[in-house]
């Protein structure tokens, strides 16, 4: 018999007394609200830190003054026009990648599912590059995010069909790697063949992702799609929770599986697709964050969604602050930093779990 795990130092109830017994039941959502509040506060704190760092470091009071339109004009300009869009983009990208990673893992019942690894991000990047470099984006500002979302949707549907056909977790991940490689190759090809070829830096940007040098216009362009996508994904929480029992028992409990699939596939395509249209493909956030937070929600797939969204934003902000603090001669790409953290993490996860899942 294994050791009985006790939470919050509670004592084993042996009296059978119903009233005291009920008091000892851990409330079903206990801890999650505190976790979310903690993550939110951390996110707000990191956002202020992020506004401080850059070519011209500012103090906290200068940041606050600049944010609310006080202090020197240069400070206002730096904080409001240069660094704030960057922080907001970090929020949007992190929310989208974190929550879609957690939702895809719940839906596909695969802890390795993630928009980056499954090739959803790079497919969205391909869609964005195709419109950008063949002039479609000049016709209509919405063409860029629309194409990215469409390509993300196609990739998600393809992978979902594969998962539905009963493929193993390994097949799914390998198919994702293949989709990702193909989309990356086509992105590079498109950039090479573009009417006025762009330099390697542009290719790297789309394949690895960055949130520097973006404006409020970029934020506004994707904000509605990301918010709707994230809300769709959060709305899948109750059904996702029940899906832990398997599809048959979940259906017997009233879960509408087709609706759940639509919520998650559409939510992922909208949020991740829109983000990639502006930032390029940033990998591993959706893998690392849900995995780190899972134990704090006691492995409940629905409860994991909101913390993963907040955690994703935190991770992207931390990575973005780190690359500015490291201070390389030429600023690192955000995707390089997340990959440096995420790829070894992915490897460790595969090695640790290969016995029972691959």
């Amino acid at each position, binding site marked *: 018999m294994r050791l009985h*795990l006790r939470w919050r130092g509670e004592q084993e109830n042996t009296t059978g007394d119903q009233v005291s*017994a*009920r008091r000892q039941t851990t409330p079903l959502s206990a801890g999650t609200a505190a976790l979310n509040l903690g993550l939110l506060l951390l996110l707000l704190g990191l956002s202020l830190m992020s506004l401080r760092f850059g070519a011209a470091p500012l103090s906290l009071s200068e940041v606050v003054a600049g944010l609310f339109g006080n202090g020197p004009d240069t400070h206002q300009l730096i904080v409001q026009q240069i660094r704030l869009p960057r922080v907001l983009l970090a929020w949007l990208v992190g929310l989208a990648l974190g929550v879609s990673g957690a939702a895809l893992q719940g839906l596909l019942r695969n802890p390795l599912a993630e928009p980056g690894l499954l090739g959803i991000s790079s497919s969205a990047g391909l869609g964005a590059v195709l419109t950008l470099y063949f002039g479609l984006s000049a016709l209509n500002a919405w063409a860029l995010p629309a194409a990215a979302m469409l390509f993300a949707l196609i990739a998600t549907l393809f992978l979902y069909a594969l998962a539905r056909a009963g493929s193993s977790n390994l097949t799914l991940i390998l198919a994702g790697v293949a989709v990702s490689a193909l989309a990356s190759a086509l992105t590079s090809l498109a950039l090479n063949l573009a009417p006025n070829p762009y330099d390697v830096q542009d290719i790297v940007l789309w394949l690895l992702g960055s949130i520097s040098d973006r404006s409020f216009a970029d934020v506004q362009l994707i904000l509605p799609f990301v918010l709707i996508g994230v809300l769709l994904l*959060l709305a899948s929480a*109750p059904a996702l929770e029940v899906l832990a029992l398997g599809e048959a*028992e979940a259906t*017997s*409990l009233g*879960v509408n599986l087709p609706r759940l699939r639509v919520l998650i596939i559409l939510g992922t395509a909208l949020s991740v697709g829109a983000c990639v249209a502006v930032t390029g493909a940033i990998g591993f956030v959706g893998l690392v964050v849900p995995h780190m937070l899972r134990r704090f929600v006691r492995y409940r797939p629905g409860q994991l*969604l909101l913390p993963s969204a907040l955690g994703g934003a935190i991770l992207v902000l931390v990575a973005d602050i780190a690359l500015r603090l490291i201070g390389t001669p030429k600023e690192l790409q955000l995707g390089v930093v997340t990959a440096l953290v995420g790829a070894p993490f992915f490897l460790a996860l595969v090695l640790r779990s290969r016995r029972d899942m691959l």
Partner: protein
Amino acid sequence: MSLLKVEALSVDIGGKRLLENLDLEIMAGELFGLIGPNGAGKSTLVKAIMQLLPYSGTVSLDGQPLAQLSARARAQRLAYLSQDDRLQWPISVQNLVALGRHPYRGSWWRGAGLGSAGLGGRKGGNAQAQADERAIEQAMQATDIWSLRERRADELSGGERARARLARVLAVEADVLLADEPVAALDPMHQLRVMELLRARCQAGQTVVVVLHDLTLASRFCDRLLLLDQGVAVASGPVETVLSPSHLASVYSVQAIIGEHQDGDQVHRYIVPWTCDRPGGTST
């Protein structure tokens, strides 16, 4: 009075007929057993009743076709325990049992969804939350897993796990429980425990439909049986008529030892499959 009624039920999947023109009536408060060899269609019948498969014919509860009920209303009245006991995430026993209350939760746009996503939408003190808590607790007490409630479901032994899954089904507080081979992987003690629990549910007013392979358990605990073979009902009714030597020989292709055991004032039958009639085998 029949509670669950199946009329002219046929199931075809991939061009293969899995169930053929089946009629069945299950009474309220009955412990009804579905038996038959592998591939006979027992699980298919349970899934069709649960509306998990496309079928032709009618399945009705209290005279109302189940196909006309909303998924939510159906989920409140019928609870289902599948054969598949894999759980993807190692959630706690208490959280596992609580999933049985899903048919009663509010729609997500009323805030419950965000509550589940961690915003604490469910307030203590409202009537539904109290009913949920009481049902979850009673289910855990009935299955004797109260002391395991904080354990991770993947750390349980087979018998504990079976009881935890059963508690999840009991927490639904449905009129009808349908359990697909709930004792398949259990030791004799846990087999008896689960069957006694199902028996007790019937005495408490619920109706139980259970798929069984163990004919002695079927004979000992069930009120009535349906014997299926290759998608067709071979016999249905009281235990003595269904579990006759001729049925065992023709459907299961086994010669069985059938004995009787006096337990208080009740006589129970035990059935021990002894030799199989393989073509070219040595049995007689």
